[in-house]
């Protein structure tokens, strides 16, 4: 994201500290540097201690940002803190983020996401908004330029891009991977000229749009439909933006499948992801197994953690279901 003044591992501070009220800011700023550089989540819950997650470990935060393994010396979040955070992350304008509250998260500048929990207000059975918001999950996503280097030659053949499905358990880097795939396909690389890419970013995680502008590098020829439902977004892109490749996150609904087939018929390549640990696991889920049976995808990439977060465990040929890798790569 290239903010000057902060080493890349600490780039999040610029945006996130600004979204926090003074006393919480002081605490977060006091987190020891080595932990701050690999910080993944800051959890803030009213009346409970502040907790951070870093490299798969969790720590309680003391009033000075010190790390504790037990909650006794931790800072306990007050009602006032929670109200201030809500005001600041919404730019003092709760009325302007109604849609985001309904979805349960607010995207900050830089594409960082803050998940929210509170009491749902219903209207005619649908969630109208959240009130009494009392939990925040500040997620520090890191875009990794080059994350797709190791897989890109498996999903591109000459000038052709394969239909690709990325399977992975949560938190194993599938969004990071397809974000970089989007960038590489869009910008091109030696041996491949860039193509038009369309992203349907339902949860604002791939491009991390802030007021519609991508905050992550998703490529020079990439159009992003931010916060748009997948199936409708895919149809919109087909109709109006003539992409060569459509990239979207986490398919799983019946209408997603229809939209994907529509794209196939229009000659557009699809790259998408699903929550699943392997093909066998995916087969047990009705929608995914339907997709697999239709043999829509030509490449199926399986991510895991055997060599650390983001390990590419397997790459299947979608037709023969042969694994193209000898061993996991990272």
């Amino acid at each position, binding site marked *: 994201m290239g903010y000057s003044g902060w080493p890349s591992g600490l780039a999040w501070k610029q945006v996130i500290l600004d979204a926090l009220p003074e006393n919480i800011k002081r605490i977060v700023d006091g987190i020891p540097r080595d932990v701050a550089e690999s910080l993944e989540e800051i959890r803030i819950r009213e009346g409970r201690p502040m907790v951070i997650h870093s490299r798969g470990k969790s720590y309680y935060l003391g009033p000075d940002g010190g790390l504790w393994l037990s909650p006794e010396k931790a800072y306990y979040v007050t009602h*006032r803190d929670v109200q*201030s955070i809500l*005001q600041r992350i919404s730019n*003092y*304008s*709760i*009325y*302007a983020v*109604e849609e985001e509250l309904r979805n349960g998260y607010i995207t900050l500048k830089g594409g960082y996401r803050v998940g929210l929990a509170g009491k749902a207000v219903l209207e005619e059975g649908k969630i109208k908004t959240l009130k009494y918001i009392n939990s925040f999950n500040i997620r520090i996503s890191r875009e990794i330029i080059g994350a797709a280097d190791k897989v890109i030659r498996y999903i591109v053949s000459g000038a052709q891009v394969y239909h690709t499905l990325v399977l992975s358990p949560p938190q194993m880097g599938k969004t990071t991977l397809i974000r970089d795939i989007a960038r590489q396909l869009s910008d091109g690389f030696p041996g491949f000229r860039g193509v038009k890419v369309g992203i349907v970013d339902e949860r604002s995680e791939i491009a991390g749009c802030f007021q519609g502008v991508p905050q992550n590098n998703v490529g020079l020829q990439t159009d992003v439909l931010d916060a748009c439902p997948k199936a409708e977004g895919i149809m919109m892109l087909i109709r109006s933006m003539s992409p060569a490749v459509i990239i979207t996150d986490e398919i799983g609904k019946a209408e997603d499948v229809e939209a994907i087939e529509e794209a196939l018929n229009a000659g557009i390549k699809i790259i998408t992801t699903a929550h699943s640990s392997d093909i066998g696991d995916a087969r047990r889920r009705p929608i995914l197994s339907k997709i697999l049976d239709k043999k829509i995808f030509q490449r199926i990439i399986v991510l895991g953690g055997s060599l650390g977060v983001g390990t590419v465990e397997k790459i299947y040929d979608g037709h023969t279901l042969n694994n193209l890798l000898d061993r996991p790569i990272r």
Partner: protein
Amino acid sequence: MAFIKILSSLMIVVCCSFLGLQAANAYALRVKELRMLRIAFAHLESEIINYATFLPEAVERVAALLQGAVKEFFYDFSRGLQKRSGDTAAEAWEKALKSWEKHLYITAEDAQILLTFGKVLGASDRESQQRYFQIIQGQLRNQEQRAEEACLKYRNMYRNLGVLSGLALAIILL
């Protein structure tokens, strides 16, 4: 000698009249400011309800449409929000109001109404923001009416009082 006496008497009359005018004017200016505040809140309501503009920007746009000390007060509030100095919008509002209150002709009661409104500004969904705007418009209209009545009642009185007390003082001193 007589010339100096006449001149100083004249000065006394002019000064007293001026003070009287000032006091009378304060009533008229309060009415004007309350009217300006109502216009400001009507614009702000439109920015918030119709366009969902973020508050710092909405306040700045509204300030551009205003005049006088009310304009400066709104600019000050918008700057406070943009600098993100307060933890909440209410804090920034209170700070701006406290520093501009002395430059405004509104009464302490008017200021209290504004202060209360600031506590909810921006801090809820569109629907309830709209209700708050209706409330503040009603309250300000009330205050404006009262201010107009007071203005009619006291403006002439203070004007006359200024001139007359000046004359009285001059006669006593002569």
